[in-house]
């Protein structure tokens, strides 16, 4: 298993370089202009100067290699300097966003907490809701609980978050006034009151996303449980005279969780990717919003860096999911 993991990690390096190249080429081929959003009153020659100052005059391979150097060498050096207080010296250019003219990595670091708080929490909540629902739905297949669960999952899955989000804002912010409609990213939790305030502003975005996540995962859980409930070994377990709790929670659940755990692991990069729409609706302004604003603004370095980090996380969590599979399921052997 260890060797396998190491081998996979080594294989990931060329994969990621290839991905970064593809992303770069795709972004470069896509029609986008960092000056497109400027007011029409700014004349074309000024726009051209702005483009030149952003380095767009260089040929594509130079720009790609420059990005690679900035991202793979300069940024890690910078992080090491900050962490260990080293001074490696040298005038290093970091990956700069065209829109904000600031280092992209700093932007990402700044955006990550709110995304993890809101999107991550919604994922956790979604999973915590989904597992029991999936288990009970499968155990009592076709019962009213299962039917209601199926119905709610269908709604959660098919109703877009921009609808549920705005609906919640209208009901809970405008009519009832319970929760703020706009997320305060500068809010600091220092005491119980501010903690409560943090909870209040997180309730709606978390609920909206959790519904969506729970819908998806509870379906997986249910299907996986049903698969296993009809297996012979469950009958064996019952024939052994085990209690129903043991049969369901030990025998069936543990086996059913194997595919579900990997699905959950594969979903984690999406958490970092943020939930673009939900972040927009509640003004959470996390990574998802950063990505969409950068795309709209033609801010290629930010889009490139963000998408690459997402790609990295996806590769990483694919590996984690595979390793988890190996750990959880004795039938899987990698070596």
């Amino acid at each position: 298993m260890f060797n396998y993991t190491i081998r996979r990690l080594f294989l990931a390096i060329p994969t990621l370089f290839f991905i970064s190249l593809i992303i770069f080429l795709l972004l470069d081929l896509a029609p986008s202009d960092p000056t497109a959003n400027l007011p029409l009153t700014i004349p074309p020659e000024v726009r051209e100067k702005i483009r030149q100052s952003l380095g767009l005059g260089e040929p594509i391979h130079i720009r790609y290699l420059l990005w690679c150097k900035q991202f793979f060498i300069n940024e890690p050096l910078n992080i090491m300097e900050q962490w260990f207080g080293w001074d490696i010296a040298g005038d290093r250019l970091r990956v700069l966003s065209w829109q904000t003219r600031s280092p992209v990595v700093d932007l990402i670091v700044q955006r990550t907490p709110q995304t993890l708080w809101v999107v991550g929490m919604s994922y956790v909540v979604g999973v915590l809701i989904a597992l029991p629902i999936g288990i009970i739905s499968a155990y009592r297949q076709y019962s009213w609980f299962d039917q209601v669960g199926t119905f709610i999952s269908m709604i959660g899955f098919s109703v877009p978050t921009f609808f549920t989000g705005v609906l919640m804002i209208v009901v809970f912010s405008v009519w009832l006034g319970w929760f703020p409609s706009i997320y305060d990213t500068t809010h600091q939790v220092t005491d119980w009151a501010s903690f409560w305030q943090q909870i209040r502003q997180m309730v709606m975005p978390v609920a909206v996303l959790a519904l969506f996540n729970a819908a998806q995962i509870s379906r997986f859980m249910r299907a996986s449980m049903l698969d296993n409930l009809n297996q012979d070994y469950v009958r064996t377990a019952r024939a052994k005279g085990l209690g129903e709790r043991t049969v369901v929670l030990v025998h069936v659940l543990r086996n059913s969780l194997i595919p579900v755990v990997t699905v959950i692991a594969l979903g984690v990069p999406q958490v970092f990717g943020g939930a673009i729409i939900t972040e927009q609706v509640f003004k959470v302004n996390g990574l998802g919003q950063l990505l969409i604003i950068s795309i709209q603004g033609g801010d290629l370095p930010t889009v490139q860096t963000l998408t690459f980090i997402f790609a990295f996380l996806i590769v990483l969590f694919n590996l984690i999911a595979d390793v988890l599979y190996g750990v959880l399921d004795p039938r899987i052997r990698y070596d």
Partner: protein
Amino acid sequence: MRLTKILLGAVAAMAMSSAAQAERGADGQVNIIYWQAPSTMNPYLSGGTKELEAASLVLEPLARYDQDGNMVPFLAEDVPTVANGGVSADLTTITWKLKEGLKWADGSAVTAADAVFTWKYCSHPEGGCAQSEKYNDVTGVEAVDDRTIKVTFGVSKPFPYGPFVGAQAPLIQAAQFANCLGAKAPECTDANFGPIGTGPFAVTDFRPNDVISLEANSNYRDPAKPAFAKVTFKGGGDAAAAGRSVLETGEFDYAWNLQLAPDVLANMQAAGKGTVVSSFGTLVERIMINMTNPDPALGDERATAKHAHPFLSDMAVRKALSMAVDRKLLVEIGYGDAGRPTCNVLPAPEIYKSSANDACLVQDIESAKKLLDDAGWVAGGDGVRAKDGKRLSILFQSSTNAVRQDFQALIKQWWSDIGVETELRNIDASVFFGGDPASPDTFQKFFADVEMYANNFDGTDPESYMANWECKQAPRPETQWQGNNMPRYCNADYDALVAEMAKTGDLNERARLAKAMNDKLMQEYIILPLVDRGRVSAHSNTLGGVVLNTWDSELWNAADWHRVKSQ
């Protein structure tokens, strides 16, 4: 929660301010929401409106425009003119004098050297300065003494108020940006995100594309201002959410640029927490009349000055078309508070606004019919008027946009009432405005009889805008179909007015000329203005001092904003 915040803010502000400035910061915190989030605080590195406006809380120019488009001195003692000797007679230099005792937020003195540096910063060839247009033709900026700034132009500038005027061209601190010239500009992240300014507020925390936290500038020149100790400037979302947060939930005090349907805004305002305010600039939705013949049979000479339009060259027809339109109804349906009927293509600033054409505000179908009757256009069997075998049948094009298509349908109905047949056409905006010479569907090629769109001009000076309708500006094959004179209007008298304005420095004289040009276009019915489109914003009922301004930053007078008590 709100009360404690205010109290905390007030306490914090008291602690910061000296005892003599007891009133500064007394009103606690103000929350502003822009549904497009600012990505930098340096207006020279981004031409976007959102960045300009956010920066205007911190950075100030020598003079700003007020809500009527008049220049108001900010850092300067007064506005230099030829009359007061500030502008040289040959219109090549302008000399500004800074107010006395001005300080940057860090306590250092504001000097003329800062202005010289600002010019160098923006005119550096590698800097990619987004506002370099403002410093066009400047050959030198000189610090005559600590408080005197002399700007020299390479050419005669009848309107020398580009540099250091308005939200686009504020002063930045030389000390802070000294190492940020040219290619180094984007690397100065701290300076770009937290410029030291002279404005009422100073940045405490800038999160690009998200939220800006500001506090009252303790060195602001008026010790009693600003009333607010803290500003939270939130960005992101959409116009509806921003409007909701001010008008319905009351979480924010000010929301910018609410481009929403009139009934949506009215419903929000009905919640009673805030007020919608609107202000008007120079954006006019208009119908352009093609004075040339767009008949495809003409081949390469189609829509060029070689062939006059078969019936739109008759002024009676053009006038009748204008009279048949009910501009008030158009406003009501399309824009609500964000629009008002207009009869001028140059509707503002106030001194340029003509009142000679206001008759068009009232729809008059009967007179239009009579006009056509008198001109010899007689209705045929199908109700469409004709003369000498030429039928009044019009192809009406516009860009694809829900409001524009509503307008087209209404206008078609009115024109059919006076016996004019109309065929409607809409073209995707990216094609219509795209300017691709290969496409037959651009608004410059104008292969139709009439077309509708909106346009405006930057700033308050209409000189280049009015020059759009010079004869030589007509798009034609020789210019690769570029040019701004869509009607292909060609009148020597008009061109003479344009030339005269280019060498006239006196403001009142310039106003007279601009009005004359506007009236000429209106009274010959070359352009049929429909709606003067404004900016709509909203503020909470407890926020006082808001004066919406489309000529400068909307936050231009944030120093005067205050909390309205006991309401």
